[in-house]
């Protein structure tokens, strides 16, 4: 299974994904693929159905029609057939949320330990041997703390590890949510607008972090983003949605020049000049 660009293995295949809410078709027959060890972005105007695609992928919605298959190193999974939480547990697809969803009254470290719940649950023999604090469990817990520590170092939150997560500044909460998702040891990391609300410096840091995750952890990232500097700067592959349909699919260069995309973002009259803001945004990435 080879994807069109770069010759990498396809990790996620979405075929004919359709999601209806009553009469509203939020996602209409969308087909795309995301390659392993690449960053793929889903972009589109507001209400294009990007988050709905994410919610289908991570099991929060059951798609009306469609197949979503994951070809990971640890097995093949049909995501549309799985219960919500099993997608994280078995298929190891992790996600973050548009509005940050940390456990605000738990400490930063605890947030990262909770992410390793399933592994620790097995180590504590479903609580039975954990109650007696046998060495097998304490070893597993130590390992979990080490992994958490590794990610805390990566997101520069090590000295604030014992803070309540809800008291962190906004940018740090964003980073923590990504670290928490990474602590589940995912094969596919889905990020819903990771750069929303970040200032330019934080946003540049985020780019570095994501590229680092792709290259060091060797996993695939799928992200929804409005910030073109992020999308154009780091994506290997971009899918454009508009009114629930896919209107373009390709590398950043081809997307930037795609007439359909320009029309979707700017309206019908192609002879009009780009508003300066948008022109700047599009130019920024290159």
């Amino acid at each position, binding site marked *: 299974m080879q994807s069109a660009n770069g010759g990498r293995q396809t990790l996620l295949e979405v075929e004919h994904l359709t999601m209806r809410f009553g009469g509203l078709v939020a996602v209409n027959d969308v087909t795309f693929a995301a390659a392993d060890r690449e960053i793929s972005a889903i972009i589109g105007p507001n209400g294009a159905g990007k988050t709905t695609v994410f919610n289908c992928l991570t099991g929060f919605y059951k798609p009306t029609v469609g197949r979503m298959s994951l070809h990971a190193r640890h097995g093949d999974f049909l995501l549309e057939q799985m219960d919500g939480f099993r*997608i994280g547990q078995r298929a190891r697809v992790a996600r973050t949320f548009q509005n940050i969803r*940390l456990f605000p*009254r738990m400490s930063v470290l*605890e947030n990262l330990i909770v992410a390793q*719940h399933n592994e620790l649950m097995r180590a*504590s023999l479903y609580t039975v041997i954990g*109650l007696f604090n046998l060495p097998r469990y304490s070893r597993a817990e130590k390992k979990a*703390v080490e992994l958490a520590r590794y990610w805390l170092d990566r997101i520069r939150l090590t000295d604030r590890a014992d803070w309540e997560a809800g008291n962190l500044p906004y940018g740090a909460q964003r980073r923590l949510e990504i670290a928490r*998702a990474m602590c589940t040891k995912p094969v596919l990391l889905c990020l819903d607008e990771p750069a929303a609300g970040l200032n330019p410096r934080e946003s540049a840091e985020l780019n570095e972090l994501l590229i680092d995750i792709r290259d060091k952890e060797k996993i695939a990232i799928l992200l929804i983003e409005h910030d073109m500097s992020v999308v154009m700067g780091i994506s290997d592959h971009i899918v454009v949605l508009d009114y629930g349909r896919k209107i373009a699919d390709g590398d950043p260069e081809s997307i930037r020049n795609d007439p359909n995309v320009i029309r979707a973002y700017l309206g019908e009259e192609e002879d009009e000049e780009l508003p300066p803001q948008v022109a700047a945004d599009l130019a920024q990435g290159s």
Partner: protein
Amino acid sequence: MVARAEALAKPLVIPTLLKQSIGAALIALVLTSLIVGIKTVDTNEALSFTTRFPSVAWASIGVGLAYLGFGLVRSGMPLAGLIASLAVGVAQASVLLWGGPAKELYLPFEDPVVNWVVVLVAGVIAIRAALALRRGDGTGAAPAGTALGDRIARKFNQASRLLAPLLIAFAITMPFLPFADRRFVDVATLVSTYVMLGWGLNIVVGLAGLLDLGYVAFYAVGAYSYSMFATYLGLSFWLCLPLAGMIAASFGVLLGFPVLRLRGDYLAIVTLGFGEMVRLILINWWWFTGGPNGINNVPRPSFFGIPFERNPPEGTWSFHKLFGIEYSSNHRVVFLYYLILGLALLTCLFSYRIRRLPIGRAWEALREDETACRALGINPTNTKLTAFAIGAMFGGFAGSFFATRQGFVSPESFTFLESAVILAIVVLGGMGSQVGVALAAIVLIGVPEFFRELAGYRMLAFGIGMVLIMIWRPRGLLAVRDPTIRLHPRGGPEPEPAKP
């Protein structure tokens, strides 16, 4: 700058304050005119009423003055507030204490307790005023109440690491201390039962965040299971205890299934209904549960098979014979006390340990954000059901103990009020705080037992206390959460104080 602003504002302040105080007094007048002003009297022929208009007048004047006092302190004139409140408070207190004939003339209310409340309010105003004077900022506004409360709670939490072993040591040696008469041990047993119930419910409400208003159902299931196994099948207490716990846990799962998708108010209503259902079934299924008559002659506890009897049948042992001591009916009381103390400590140890296990952290995470939990691959169904089952199991244990202590169970012991009291203990103590729950149980259960004379004011004090806590410490008195695992040792970079 500040001084000039005050100098400008002062002429305006007095009339505004007076106006507001008169307003407050008028509202008090309207509210008290019927509630206080008219008192029903049971004459021989029929129910009639008398009036208590002087009390209404005094109450309105009192509210107006109190409002004025607080207003003076708040708007930069603490000295006036201090002098006035001290004058009123001291006058009232001295009349109450040494008044003699003056009592008839001066005292505003008939009831001494209400008269003392006046002294109390005057005292509070005086303290506020004195604090404001000492700080010298003239405003007297309490430093952001929640922050102060949080600091105290944090200090207390640190102290509780020391306090908890002391409390436990005291609880263990208590029956041998000189002041511990039979009544004291009895009350301590009752308090310990509620401490245990509080700790059990804390797992469901405090950790997993599932508001359960029907906890008494599991208490009832435990009590009835024990009574039936013991009376009908003749099983011993130590065999019945785990059985009762298991049956209660299954009821927990039974309740858990239908409410998996419910949160907040809806969950509370369904659990409340469940509690009532269990009670009604106990009443109406008469051929099985004995109906309203309950189950009599539940076997009394024995010391691991050796009964507490004065004259055991020939050839059998009894507790006092075994240990070669004089027979005393207190032995059983003390044994019961140790039994419930042991069970309660077991509950405490269990919750302490399980908070540090993945399942405990998953409960807390579920309380914080269920959606995020699902995204992390945590099975919300199993996690919730275990919380219900384990909470119910401890309720069942406590129920067994209740049955063996009373020797009699009937549906009357398991009304909604019990659930409310247990929940109040958990909420008051601070959800998730073990020491807080123990202290709350002592305050809510133990203290009223020793002040039976004031029983009429019990519910009033209870209500006022709850309202005050909801205003100042909505998460409970000792709701400071310590992380279950730390990267840096204590005393490293301090965690930020919680947001108000």
